[in-house]
């Protein structure tokens, strides 16, 4: 057979591509559920690490099934809010309904454009609320989960992650426990500007809403600072109004008086 004729070439390439596509579609279909389960468990680990449900190392050595169970045991309610702070959706308190990282990117755009958003709030037992933050680092997106005390302005814990920041520099936002631990006990200065300040020597001034940036990771720190401020701003009206339960409102007032 003449393998160099035009007809043969066209038919051959078409067949090869169709076969490759069929194989990949089949495999993607077969492996899809377990990939989703992995991504979901990863997000839950990061949220629960921020909320302080268990130590980070322990969460990362727990299997997916254990993570789902732990989340189901500890979550109180999960819902979404709009930019005006009102609830516009419920995320059922089961393992099946959380917003994964890929949902945060379009939301980040929508926040900046002032469009319609469904920002997730996860309230764990004990009144710890966890919210995501998302922004651009040096090489790719950076994101994280910030847990608030019941007063909804004191940070209880944080966990950060990134797609491709420089190992040893920007990657420290994820790798170094001391960095995320610095956020515990800090407050977000709702009502003033900036809400939060992650910058060089920021802690020296003694402000409670400041954390020192990472040396040698200027762009990652800047990106994370913007992510924090943009997302805190988006959640401001909701977190400040400290919705629903009356007791939470009291806690907020009490804290303010102190």
């Amino acid at each position, binding site marked *: 057979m003449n393998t160099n004729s035009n007809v043969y070439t066209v038919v051959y390439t078409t067949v090869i591509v169709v076969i490759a596509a069929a194989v990949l579609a089949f495999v993607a279909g077969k492996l899809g559920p377990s990939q989703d389960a992995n991504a979901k468990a990863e997000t839950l680990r990061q949220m629960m690490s921020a909320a302080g449900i268990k130590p980070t190392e322990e969460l990362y050595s727990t299997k997916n099934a254990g993570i789902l169970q732990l989340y189901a045991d500890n979550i109180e309610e999960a819902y979404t809010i709009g930019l005006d702070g009102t609830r516009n959706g419920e995320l059922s308190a089961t393992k099946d309904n959380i917003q994964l990282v890929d949902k945060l990117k379009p939301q980040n755009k929508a926040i900046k454009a002032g469009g319609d958003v469904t920002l997730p709030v996860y309230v764990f037992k004990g009144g710890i609320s966890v919210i995501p933050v998302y922004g651009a680092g040096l090489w790719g997106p950076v994101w994280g989960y910030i847990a608030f005390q019941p007063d909804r302005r004191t940070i209880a814990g944080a966990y950060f992650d990134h*797609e491709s920041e420089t190992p040893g520099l920007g990657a420290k936002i994820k790798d170094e426990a001391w960095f995320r631990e610095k956020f515990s006990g800090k407050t977000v200065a709702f009502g003033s500007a900036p809400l939060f300040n992650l910058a060089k020597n920021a802690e020296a001034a003694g402000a409670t809403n400041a954390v020192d940036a990472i040396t040698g990771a200027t762009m990652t720190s800047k990106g994370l600072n913007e992510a924090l401020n943009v997302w805190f701003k988006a959640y401001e009206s909701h977190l400040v109004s400290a919705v629903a339960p009356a007791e939470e409102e009291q806690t907020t007032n009490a804290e303010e008086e102190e």
Partner: protein
Amino acid sequence: MDKKLKETILNPILKGNPITVLVLGICSALAVTVQLKGALVMALSVTLVTGLSSFVCSLLRNTIPTRVRIIVQLVVVAMMVILVDQILKSGEATYAIDKQLSVYIGLIITNCIVMGRIEAFALGNKPIPSLLDGLANGVGYGLILIIVAFFRELLGSGTLFGIQILPAGYIPNNLVILPPFALILLGCIIWVHRALDKDLQED
């Protein structure tokens, strides 16, 4: 025949090592060698991809229209890479490593070793020797990756496979973690390799 097969397997690991002799696949050798675990998974992935792609392309070698052979090879290689990536993503234990390697698994497609072996070997040889040639080249590549990662993780983080090896007082060397050090290390490996093997020395 036996001797030829042995040559096929041993040559890429020693005299014809894709990284130190052919200087292919340098980019990923710099990028994924910060930690041993990542380097090991990358080495396995590349070995699988080169082996299987060479095997499939060798099976098809008599049917591929020569004018579009690179495109056909690319389709095969891309398919293998996506398969490896999907499988890594779906495993509970490998998910974290896949995340750490991020784009570099996908970039195996652009690794010159894969296409290089198909062009140079698989298109002219039977499927089984091609499979072995591909696997051996992957092993040769992986071996260098692991040597580089060993030093970078040990000196850059004081750990091996995430386990603390150097005493707690050791201050990790930041230069070692950054890509330029991998280049320096690679240079040293090539130097040692050439010093040991007289055949590789150019005057």
